[in-house]
């Protein structure tokens, strides 16, 4: 969110709610309004055009260490009033918790970021449709074996405001857009799907050619793939796959899991938990990050946090609740999925410090391995408490430093703890993706591949 004066109408609504707080009561009001356009094109025609607005308020009330919450999917006065009444009523059922409480201003300055594009806000509807159509055309010409499932343009603009009786008062707005195309390729026997996308604060930042090429490559590269034989080998992860794993690793450094005894890195601060090549930061103030933001879900300044430095565990991420429980300060990592819930804890924009060599150089060092281009079942296949993981994968075999044939329907397995220690090299090919983590090629030794 851009912490400027926009969104002041929402801030007024939030102010009115917190002004009703009674003695001994903490109140937080989080108000948001989003508008969204979604265009889907199929075979040169608009399949659907969605133009939608939504707004709502979430109200948190804390009294005597007990928390109650209610939301309303409208800013209608009566609905806001009954949400406040419900939140108050819900307070009675919470267990008193000595650490319960709202965030308080912590003196950390906001890193001002440019999160709003006037150009996007004024972007004409016809041009949105044209972009989706052009993406479909480009994808179809990229490879004759490829069909397009759908080509999409989407944009979203959101305004938010958060105010608390503890002195937080912030509002702002941001917008962004992306195009994405889904593809299919088949050779009669088997079919594979692919996708390609491009994101930006404004449409002139799109690279439609790259999106089209990626979508065609992803669908066609597995044609004729075989099932590999089971063995232990070195794995090179494509940047997109690395980003998915980083999100999972970020989850294990969650201060709330830590407080509740659920983190596999419990009592490990200061220990060597990864190869010395691994330096992991969470930095939402980096403007290159897709999820860059200036405030977190509680209205505190977003900031750069170093989590693992040279393989040594340096920090967990916290919101104000988990920080209070752990006897530390919030790291500005409150995350909130809109007005319907209370803030949790999460990483905002993870990045692995890059190495210097490209993916081809990483591959050249591998005698027996596999380049993993996509994984499946990451969320069901990784247990963030035990660290065990086993995920479905597909990609290309590597033999004596050379890429070989495509393989699919196999799993790779290890534990997160082992995997971090077994990192052989981090690539230099950083890719900023529409996720809470940036991609980079990563080589890891000694994973178990299960296939035929």
């Amino acid at each position: 969110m851009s912490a400027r004066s926009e969104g002041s109408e929402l801030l007024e609504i939030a102010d009115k709610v917190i002004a009703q707080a009674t003695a001994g009561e903490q109140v937080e009001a989080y108000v948001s309004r989003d508008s969204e356009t979604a265009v889907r094109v199929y075979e040169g025609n608009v399949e659907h055009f969605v133009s939608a607005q939504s707004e709502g308020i979430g109200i948190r009330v804390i009294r005597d260490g007990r928390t109650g919450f209610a939301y309303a999917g409208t800013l209608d006065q009566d609905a806001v009033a009954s949400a406040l009444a419900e939140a108050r009523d819900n307070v009675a059922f919470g267990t008193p918790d000595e650490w319960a409480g709202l965030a308080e201003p912590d003196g950390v300055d906001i890193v001002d970021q440019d999160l709003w594009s006037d150009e996007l806000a004024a972007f004409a509807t016809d041009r949105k449709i044209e972009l989706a159509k052009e993406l479909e055309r480009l994808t179809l010409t990229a490879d004759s074996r490829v069909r397009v499932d759908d080509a999409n343009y989407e944009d979203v603009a959101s305004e938010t405001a958060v105010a608390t009786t503890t002195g937080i008062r912030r509002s702002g707005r941001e917008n962004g857009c992306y195009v994405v195309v889904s593809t299919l390729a088949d050779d009669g026997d088997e079919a594979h799907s692919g996708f390609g996308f491009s994101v930006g604060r404004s449409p002139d930042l799109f690279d439609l050619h790259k999106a089209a090429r990626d979508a065609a490559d992803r669908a066609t590269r597995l044609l004729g793939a075989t099932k590999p034989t089971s063995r232990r080998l070195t794995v090179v992860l494509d940047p997109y796959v690395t980003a998915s794993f980083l999100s999972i690793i970020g989850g294990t450094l969650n201060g709330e899991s830590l407080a509740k005894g659920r983190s596999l890195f419990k009592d490990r601060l200061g220990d060597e938990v990864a190869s010395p090549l691994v330096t992991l930061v969470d930095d939402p103030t980096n403007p290159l990050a897709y999820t860059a933001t200036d405030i977190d879900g509680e209205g505190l300044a977003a900031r750069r946090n170093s989590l693992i430095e040279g393989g040594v565990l340096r920090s967990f991420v916290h919101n104000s609740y988990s920080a209070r429980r752990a006897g530390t300060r919030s790291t500005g990592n409150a995350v909130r999925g809109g007005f319907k819930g209370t803030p949790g804890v999460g990483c905002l924009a993870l990045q692995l410090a890059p190495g210097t060599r490209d993916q081809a150089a990483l591959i050249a060092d591998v005698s027996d391995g596999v380049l993993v281009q996509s994984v499946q079942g990451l969320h069901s296949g990784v247990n963030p408490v035990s660290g065990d993981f086993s995920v479905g994968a597909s990609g290309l075999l590597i033999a004596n430093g050379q890429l070989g044939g495509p393989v699919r329907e196999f799993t790779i397995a290890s534990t997160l703890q082992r995997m971090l220690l077994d990192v052989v090299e981090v690539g230099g090919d950083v890719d900023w993706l529409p996720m809470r983590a940036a991609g980079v090629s990563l080589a890891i030794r000694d994973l178990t591949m299960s296939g035929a």
Partner: protein
Amino acid sequence: MIDQDVLERVLTAAVRTGAEFAEVYAEDKRSTSASLDDGRIEQVTSGRDRGAGIRVVRGETTGFAHTADLSERGLLVAATAAAAAASRGGGGVREIALDRQADHRVGSVERYPDDVPKATKVDVLRRIDDAARGAGGSIVQVSAGYGDSRKRILVANTEGVMATDEQVRAVVRMSVVASGDAGMQTGFQSMGRTTGFEMFDEFSVEDLARDAARQALTKLSARPAPSGALPVVIKHGTGGVLFHEACGHGLEADLVSKGGSVYKGKQGQLVAAPLVTLVDDGTMAGEWGAIGIDDEGHISQYNVLIEDGVLTDYMWDYLRARKEGRKQSGNGRRQSYMHLPMVRMTNTYVLNGTEEPDDIVRATDYGVYVAKLGGGSVNTASGDFVFGMTEAYLIENGEITEPLRESNLMGNGPQVLRDIDLLGNDFAMGNPGTCGKDGQGVPVGDGQPTLRVKSLTIGGTAA
């Protein structure tokens, strides 16, 4: 929720620019949820969602807009926006006359969640916590969630349909962590029904909690799962999700029509072992995926998808059925008034076979017994899927022996259907699920008898 004459005027406005079809979907939902973690009731949440989505179809193009304002003025603004999105010029006035359908309900509700004190709901969570912690000193953490909702929906369209439904649901979920010498392990349980609070009279939350604790404790001494292809026996009521993901999605007409399904053009063909009959059934009273009407106003149905191994039909929503000139099948669903409907499953299950479940294990020399399958995902184009095994055991010489650590199960949907070689007679429905498609989640159920698949890839770390 909205008067009939208002709906008629809004629909008339929606097709004024020449669209062939318009629809108003309105929803009013009240929900309560509560969470317990680390021995504390963290908070009780109350929610209210209310609004309408208006869809206008002209040719191949659908325009859609939604609003939280259910007044006639608010609805007309949304109707105009949806109509503008679907068309450019042309038109005329079409009078719309709605035919109000008699209410169609699947099952009945005895205790509406609004009539149950919040303290009683919260107490369910405490009972779970107590029962799980009572299962042994190695239990170090329990978290649990309770949720209920009462959703009234109204659908009216330019074909004269006007239908309403009330969907009442309640659910509990719990996760238990046990700690041992070799680290931590987790166990899960859940139960959800499309009924009122009376569901808590039908089963014991203490039993569910103890079962979740037992899973976590059992896994403390688990050995690494094998890696490679093995026969797999899946316990009744836990593998339905596999058929939902790996087969059901490929039978959704929207995926089929774009060629994104391995089942395109396979109607009338043998696509599964002749033992297998697969059904999608929105009428199964009380089950998590049960609906009176779908979100396009069509009364829910019992649809046979695969009969004795032969593909009989796909699942249909209004748009896809209209295109093919056939009837829809009650599978047009959406997450909320903010979403467009599409083809979705309801309760998807495999019918009983004839084998005794014990005999299926006895007939297996060496393999894996899956007592609880976790979440998964599928590539609908290739049919390749991955599922977590959250509770699994080795089968040696026809007996279930040691517990296995968590790992993934991987295979190919069409191949699994052909590779089912033993099918039990002990059908059971599984845990409540949320099916995600194109960014929308809807409640779904699944089920199956104990069965054996000749060969699946186990993604363990043991040689």
